[in-house]
């Protein structure tokens, strides 16, 4: 018998198999980056430390109860009005002398905040509040800060604050990052995000 040579394996379908796998991975890949609202928690403090005294006029209390209803400065409010109310509070600028606010455009109501550096938004929730509502409220309050910051950044540097931050975090941005950082710091200093998340009252 003549020695039979092993038949060559046809590799023509190899490409098909590889394509199949490739398409599977293409479809299943989600190159996702998570995004969310970043917050910094206050450091843990022993119970017996007295909290610092803050004037009532500089505190903007937002309470959310277990039925997901809003109580802002002891008055009921719809979520859609919260942003505007927060901006008005922060932008009030009723301070005089040392506490005067040079850029505020608010109504200078003597019962509201003196300037954005002093103003504090206090967010209180109930243990029964739904997380979705809580996030919506947080979102509105952050939006209020961003709105003011955008306005001031636009006035001082001709660019919105969110754009500045976006450029700063963009690795492909070609401009001067140090100068940009300085501008961002100035704005953050003018309008600091003082948002206190109190422990819930049952």
């Amino acid at each position, binding site marked *: 018998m003549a020695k039979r040579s092993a038949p060559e394996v046809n590799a023509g379908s190899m*490409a098909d198999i590889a394509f199949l796998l490739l398409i599977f991975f293409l479809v299943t*890949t989600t190159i996702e*980056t998570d*995004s969310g609202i970043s917050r910094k928690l206050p450091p843990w403090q022993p119970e017996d430390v007295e909290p610092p005294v803050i004037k009532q006029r500089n505190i903007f209390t937002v309470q959310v109860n277990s039925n997901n209803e809003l109580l802002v400065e002891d008055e009921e409010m719809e979520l859609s009005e919260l942003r505007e109310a927060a901006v008005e509070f922060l932008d009030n600028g009723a301070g005089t002398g040392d506490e005067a606010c040079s850029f505020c455009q608010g109504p200078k109501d003597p019962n509201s905040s003196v300037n954005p550096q002093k103003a504090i938004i206090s967010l209180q929730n109930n243990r029964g509040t*739904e997380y979705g509502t809580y*996030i*919506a409220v947080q*979102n509105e309050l*952050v939006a209020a800060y961003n709105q003011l910051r955008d306005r001031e950044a636009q006035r001082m540097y001709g660019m919105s604050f969110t754009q500045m931050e976006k450029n700063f975090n963009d690795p492909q941005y070609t401009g001067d990052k140090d100068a940009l950082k300085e501008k961002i710091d100035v704005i953050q200093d003018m309008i600091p995000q003082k948002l206190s998340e109190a422990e*819930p009252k049952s």
Partner: protein
Amino acid sequence: MSKFKKKKSGELPAISTASLPDIVFMLLFFFMVATVMRQNTLMVQNTLPFADQVEKLDKKDLIMYIYAGKPSQRYQAKYGTEARIQLNDKFASVEEVQKFIYSERESKREELVPYLTTALKVDEETNMGLVSDIKQELRKAEALKINYTTVVGDAMRNVE
């Protein structure tokens, strides 16, 4: 002499596709490497709330994930429908959050520890009581940088 018959020179030679598998495999390997598989199998329901004032979370290796929500359908018989915390593939109690943070820190290089962020992936129907408990534990563990992970969208949709 017919064995050495010359080919007719008028025909175009067929393009060799022998290297096609190689090219495709190269692409395949790229996608296999770039794919990030989910680190944890979710055991809780996890519909994230919407928000539009968001920041991106880059650097995936510097994030600790804490999930919370009602147990998924198939675990409900065993664990009930009360919202629970999930850490690393299993349900955990509130007290275990601190331990989890410490062990996560242990596994990271020392100079990276201050940049660690905790991402809270909480179902939108969870009560704030549980979230507050987690936050208190994080404060005790000095993991102060947190991020409420959300889906980008209009926040008003949360309250509907």
